[in-house]
């Protein structure tokens, strides 16, 4: 269920792994910052302060980007811990408006993309226009 976790503070870093298929034309696609199609339409990230098991690069990810928790919140998105069996640091970012789960908009996805920095960079790939 979407919620905003007050234990995740504004400066907390959120990490998102980038698979090869979400890199097009030498840049990370905004699709990497979009909602999944699960019922709550969450976008998966890891909370850096919980020291995720995931290391980058790995079998699935060529690298990873990071942004602070205040970034999605500035665009009215919710950030909450959502641990799973294989990853205790797993969190989700949700868009929940009028009691309804919605897809993250282009404007919201772009804001996260523009605010991102490399956590582990990928050679010859930009996160956005001028990175």
């Amino acid at each position, binding site marked *: 269920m979407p919620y905003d976790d007050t234990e995740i503070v504004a400066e907390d870093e959120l990490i998102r*792994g980038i698979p090869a298929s979400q890199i097009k034309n030498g840049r990370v696609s*905004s699709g990497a910052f979009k909602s999944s*199609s699960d019922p709550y339409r969450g976008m998966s990230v890891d909370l850096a302060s919980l020291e995720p098991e995931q290391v980058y690069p790995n079998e*699935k990810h060529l690298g990873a980007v990071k942004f602070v928790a205040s970034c999605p919140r500035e665009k009215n998105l919710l950030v909450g811990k959502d641990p799973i069996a294989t990853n205790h640091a797993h969190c989700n970012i949700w868009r929940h408006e009028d009691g309804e789960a919605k897809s993250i908009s282009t*404007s919201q996805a772009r804001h996260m993309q523009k605010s991102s920095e490399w956590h582990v960079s990928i050679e010859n790939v930009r996160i*956005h*226009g001028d990175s």
Partner: protein
Amino acid sequence: MTNKFILQGQEASDSILTMGERGREYRPIAQNPFCGDSDELRRQLNLLCALDNDWDGYGSPPVKFENAELALRIVTNLLALFENSRPPIQALNPGVPYFVPVSGGALQIEWHLPNSKFVELFVDGSDRCLASFVDEVLDEDREISIDCSGPQIDLNELSKWIVEAMRSEGQRTVAA
């Protein structure tokens, strides 16, 4: 086994079950006789439908067949709009887009246009697809939702965005 698909109210050619890249069976999307680039479109979309489970490292299934089929319909219809237009508009045909898998079985269609302009469509199985126009130079974006539930999909606004972006490249070149 043969599957038949209907595109634009006409029966497209048959397709059969084939083996995916990693030996897994998947349904290839329909042949579309209306688009010269259809082989390349189908090749790219078939690859996305044949992604492994957990391709994104967050437990996602591959792109859903229905989403790929709708993406094919949208792109072929849009490219046909350009091909069937007057020559000045024909010349602005943006060509085959990029297809990006999105976690959960969705996909995004992306045209990377001149001068850091992008037209994107998010196809996630909803009746309405989110379409967006992004101008990274001006730091602007617009978003509309397009009704994809019926046999006809109104792509006029999308084509206007592409024409706008492609024309701005022409103007820039002339100015230079």
